[in-house]
């Protein structure tokens, strides 16, 4: 009887696990990234931003966040790539301008 209970519990847990994965969208990942940023955990935040980016590859704001995080942890080359993706995915002139300023600055570093 205990074996049956254990099997049923395992089934329920498995269902919950896959259900959780299905529901975890870009929003959840971004919320986790924001929470990590508030705690100053920029590398942790980047992991969640990468998940969010994989689920929505055209969101320029996510690329901006990713670029700023790379800059904060001193990864200029990855930051340039993220700014370039941001530039490609936005029509907002202010954001385009910001991306250009950052690319120019990061590429001109000595």
């Amino acid at each position: 009887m205990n074996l049956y209970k254990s099997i049923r519990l395992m089934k329920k847990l498995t269902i919950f696990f896959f259900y959780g994965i299905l529901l975890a969208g870009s929003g959840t990942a971004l919320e986790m990234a924001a929470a990590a940023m508030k705690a100053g955990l920029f590398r942790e935040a980047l992991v969640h931003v990468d998940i969010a980016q994989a689920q929505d590859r055209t969101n320029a704001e996510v690329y901006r966040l990713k670029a700023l995080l790379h800059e904060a942890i001193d990864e200029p080359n990855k930051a340039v790539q993220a700014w370039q993706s941001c530039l490609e995915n936005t029509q907002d002139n202010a954001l385009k301008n910001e991306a250009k300023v950052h690319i120019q600055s990061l590429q001109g570093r000595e």
Partner: protein
Amino acid sequence: MKLLLAFLLAGLLTIGCWSRPAVNPNYDFSTVGTIILKPVYDHADMTGSGEIIESNLSFIFMKYGYDVSQTTEEGTFIHLGNVDTRTLNLVCTITEFTDSEVIIVPYRLEDRGRTETTVTQLSESDAKENQAGATTSTITTAYAGSVQESGRIEYTRARVGIILKMTDQRTGHLVWSHSYWYSGLELHRTTEACVRNAISQVRKLFQ
């Protein structure tokens, strides 16, 4: 067609001139021996911002190998190594200094639907009654996903902006001017990046 070409040319010229400093073309920068960095006043939003920018300016000049001295109250002296005696006054005005600009990131939250499966264990008596001899029954319900919801998150970032002006001390002529801004997640890094970008442009004048 001509109008279109004119617009394209004007656009290209605008892009070409974008973010370039204003320079007096008749001024000979090779005759400058000293730059005096005048004290930087605080931005209205933050006390102490002037000192932070001023310290960063001195630091970056030193980092680029210039001889920096702060012996008088007139300002910070940056010696360029030339024997000439021309002196430039460098005035820095802070246009932006914040570490709490709110940025909103909108996102799409897609409802992909779900499937619920309920597995029921039959009691022994029910199993005996069941002619097929099955001991479990399974009910599967599928819910279709359709509506795309949207949400957003917020984070704060720093933003620093400065305007630099250089005037000839003897004549009072404005010889060079430019504005810079930079954004980032941390105020001190953002300030340093903004000042470094500015000084790298100043440096080009004396190379």
